[in-house]
């Protein structure tokens, strides 16, 4: 749910990075954090376990600049990917304006991707949202690893609707900003259509 503040001339939008455990959601945010100018970002918060697995969420506020005199602020969240954290994962989706699904390209994680995508749809439906109606992009991460499924195979399985999709290697930053830009753009176009 976007928040438009005419008094301080700000648009606030929420992006959630979703995907199976260890697919690289937090790494996406860490790369964005490292590569963004200090005045355009806030503090990155990670609520993680001692072994650096996301426990509740990571949070990164970003300012992209102005549009018609309004500051555009994006709040980036990741969910905990591990299956048993479903209750927490569902909470993060509340009020989401755009979704990035980060898939793990490794062949042995194919089932985990499908399961996570189904879980995303189920959890969105509980809030009365539909993935088809939300700004949504897919990122195929870990393309640098040797045992990956082909892009065609992943696309066929995870992206039957043909939403924008990107190959990525998050620790090196490949595809990270392209993914973010694509979803942010869809969100602004959506805002324009909804016309506040």
């Amino acid at each position, binding site marked *: *749910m976007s928040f438009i503040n*005419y008094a301080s001339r700000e648009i606030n939008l929420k992006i959630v990075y979703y995907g199976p455990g260890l697919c690289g959601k937090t790494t996406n945010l860490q790369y964005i954090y490292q590569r963004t100018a200090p005045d355009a970002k806030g503090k990155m918060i990670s609520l993680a376990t001692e072994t650096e697995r996301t426990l509740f969420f990571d949070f990164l506020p970003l300012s992209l600049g102005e*549009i*018609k005199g309004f500051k555009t602020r994006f709040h980036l969240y990741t969910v905990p990917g591990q299956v048993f954290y479903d209750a927490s994962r569902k909470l993060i989706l509340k009020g989401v304006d755009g979704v990035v699904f980060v898939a793990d390209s490794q062949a042995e994680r194919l089932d985990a991707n499908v399961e996570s995508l189904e879980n995303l749809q189920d959890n969105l439906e509980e809030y009365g949202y539909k993935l088809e109606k939300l700004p949504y992009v897919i990122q195929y991460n870990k393309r640098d690893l040797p045992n990956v499924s082909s892009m065609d195979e992943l696309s066929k399985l995870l992206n039957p609707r043909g939403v924008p999709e990107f190959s990525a290697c998050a620790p090196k930053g490949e595809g990270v900003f392209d993914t973010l830009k694509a979803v942010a753009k869809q969100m602004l176009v959506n805002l324009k259509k909804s016309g506040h």
Partner: protein
Amino acid sequence: MFEAQSSLVLHDEEFSSIASVIEKLLQESNSKAIFLVDKDGQLISSVGETGDLDTTSLASLTAGNIAATGGLAKLIGEKEFSILFHEGEKDNLHLSLIASRVILVVIFDNRSSLGLVRLRVKKWGEELERIFCTLEKKARQNSDSPKSFFAEITDEDIDNLFK
């Protein structure tokens, strides 16, 4: 099944009435700082000693806290827990839900007390609830108005953001 909520749109008029209510609450409760945060983690307004605080993080963590506690409430068959209190060595946090939509965060130290804060939050919380209910009504009435500011955004404006 949860209900999908519409966007929160705040104009100058409501913004200043909200700011004046939380300013009065700050004075009457003798607290250090007060924040009003959207349940989705976006900061709406703040007053008091906010200078040293990372307000964006505070807003997001508050919303996470309320969301987690709300999840716990549902597990034991409650609709929600409308008040949370965190006690520190010097500073304390009092969180309360307003109109099931926004979170009122009061930070106070030993110049005030939990009793006083609760009493004043109850009084001014009702005032805030009125403002947010009016806001929601207004949003529903305007939802189908064809002319709007954001409709005037061009594709070029959007592209320019990403240059």
